[in-house]
């Protein structure tokens, strides 16, 4: 992708902290109008990557551009083109919603003539318009997060960097927040969003899976899932434990995991194995309510990838 065509380019990025390589030769690109997820557990390098993209941390080597600007060479220029919402976004709890917005508008140098229209549009889109005079400290968690988004967007950035924006937010607020993000993308904003929730990854257009500073995958969630060899078969049974214990040695089953009232079996050939497993359930007189092929989750994929890597390292 050409730097002018991509909203974000990252190539060979490295960042070391004392005793640890936080990110290790990271390369990826984010297209305009994309919601791109940087996905991984704590310590994978997500926040370090976000900070480098925001121009607040210099990489040790490698190259990153955001909205056409080199973040290492010209961090000040980048700051006008982007917005960075860190995990703890600095809202002033003893200021009202409006006062917080005004503060950020001043900070980003938004002209007075533009700010009222922009603020009103964003507040309406976020559904917090009626709370303009309320103190930020009196808002619920989900609403604080929306106010953070309004403040981050007041200067109409081209690229929005969100570091774990939905941490600790309930599912309903999380959905509303995502609906907002899609609206923004529709208005031409590119969004880079980091998350440790693997289920949240499913909502991004494309994702980069990070593990210990390295890139495991970078593609659409659907393509990632299609890459997973074999398939996952779920058996729902009141005697799920017995299924787990009795079926570990079944032909074509590479691993299995007890998940609530179901057992997920990783199999090579789902149609054939479902037939065989059904016969085996009947032969063992194990009652079950369902045996069905299920879509692997991003977590399944992640575990398989990391396990594969562990096996390769062990073999060296």
């Amino acid at each position: 992708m050409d730097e002018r065509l991509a909203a974000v380019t990252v190539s060979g990025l490295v960042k070391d902290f004392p005793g640890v390589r936080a990110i290790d030769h990271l390369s990826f690109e984010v297209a305009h109008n994309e919601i791109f997820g940087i996905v991984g557990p704590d310590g994978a390098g997500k926040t370090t990557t976000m900070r480098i993209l925001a121009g607040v941390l210099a990489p040790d080597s490698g190259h990153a551009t955001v909205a056409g600007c080199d973040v290492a060479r010209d961090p000040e220029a980048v700051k006008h083109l982007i917005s960075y919402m860190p995990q703890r976004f600095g809202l002033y709890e003893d200021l009202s919603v409006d006062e917080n917005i005004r503060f950020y508008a001043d900070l980003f140098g938004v002209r007075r003539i533009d700010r009222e229209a922009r603020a009103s549009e964003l507040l309406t889109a976020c559904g917090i318009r009626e709370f303009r005079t309320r103190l930020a400290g009196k808002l619920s968690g989900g609403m604080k997060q929306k106010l953070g988004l309004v403040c981050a967007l007041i200067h109409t950035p081209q690229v929005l960097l969100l570091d774990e924006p939905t941490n600790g937010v309930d599912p309903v607020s999380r959905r509303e927040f995502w609906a907002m993000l899609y609206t923004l993308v529709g208005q031409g904003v590119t969004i880079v969003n980091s998350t440790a929730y693997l289920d949240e990854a499913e909502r991004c257009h494309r994702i980069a899976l990070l593990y210990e500073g390295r890139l495991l995958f970078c593609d659409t969630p659907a393509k990632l899932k299609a890459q997973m060899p074999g398939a996952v078969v779920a058996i729902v049974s009141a005697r799920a434990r017995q299924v787990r214990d009795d079926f570990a040695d079944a032909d074509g089953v590479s691993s299995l995991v007890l998940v609530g009232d179901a057992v997920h079996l990783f199999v090579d050939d789902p149609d054939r194995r479902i037939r065989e497993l059904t016969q085996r359930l009947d032969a063992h007189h194990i009652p079950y309510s369902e045996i069905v092929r299920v879509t692997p989750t991003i977590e399944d994929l992640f575990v398989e990838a990391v396990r594969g890597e562990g096996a390769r390292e062990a073999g060296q």
Partner: protein
Amino acid sequence: MTANGNSVEVEELVKRFGDFTAVDRISFQSRPGEVFGLLGPNGSGKSTTIRILCGLLHPSAGRATVAGYDVVKSPELIRRNIGYMSQKFSLYGDLTVLENLRFYSGMYGVERSVVQERIGWGLEMAGLRGRESSLTRDLSGGWKQRLALGCAVLHRPPIVFLDEPTSGVDPLSRRLFWELIQRMSDDGVTIFVTTHYMDEAEYCNRLALMYRGSLVALGTPTELKLNSIEGSLLLLECDRLGDAIGRVRAIKGVRDVAVFGNALHLVVSDDADVVSAIQMALEADRIVIARLQQIRPSLEDAFVALTAGRRALPSEAIAQ
């Protein structure tokens, strides 16, 4: 245990703080060997419930027993019969692995004659044999988590409370953790998990869903997924997603629309006309449908559907 064999019994439990009702007449039971999940967003009353069950907070009304002991009458006995591990693992970072295990064995009153054996067991379970003298703060998240679990169960409690035990931990460590938990439950230990993470909830045998102090659903994860949604859940993949959202929202019979990456999840009434109405509306706008099919709701879909009727009006959506 109680006469009927339940390890936790909660009956019409109420907790009020001033004029705010944090827990509003909830009832449920869990059995030995069960992985029981209390699921709900922050502020739903989960933590208050757990504090009552651990004997740390008195209920305003109702009754609860844990391991057969009444939470109001015998809080001391309860504390001896439970293990507790929170999301912020309460380990001492500047103590070594072994020192942490010793500290907790003392705190939980593990008998002298079995201390060595139990500490050995804890090391084994956490996979930390050979790293006894490592400082705890130098351990990675997954190790810390397993050590915290080891510390919490040194006194072999029949009931273990886990508060968001695997948040932020990498997926492989998380799987290992749940395998440990399942082995404990195989031995008859009741595992009581509180979480607002759907993917943690998936690992529970049964779930109680809390919202604004009330219990809104109780069942296995599969039951909740199958029974929560009135109507059906459709997956729609199409181009121009942004335009499509507005189009489908306007269709009668479409009750909810949520975006999932390159697709939409639509909750629709069980009515054959809805599907054709969606197709027609999108075609009229020249939006190309790649896929439109019924799918199984996820636990999150179930959660959203179950709490939909109880959701706050915007004017109420203020911190309590």
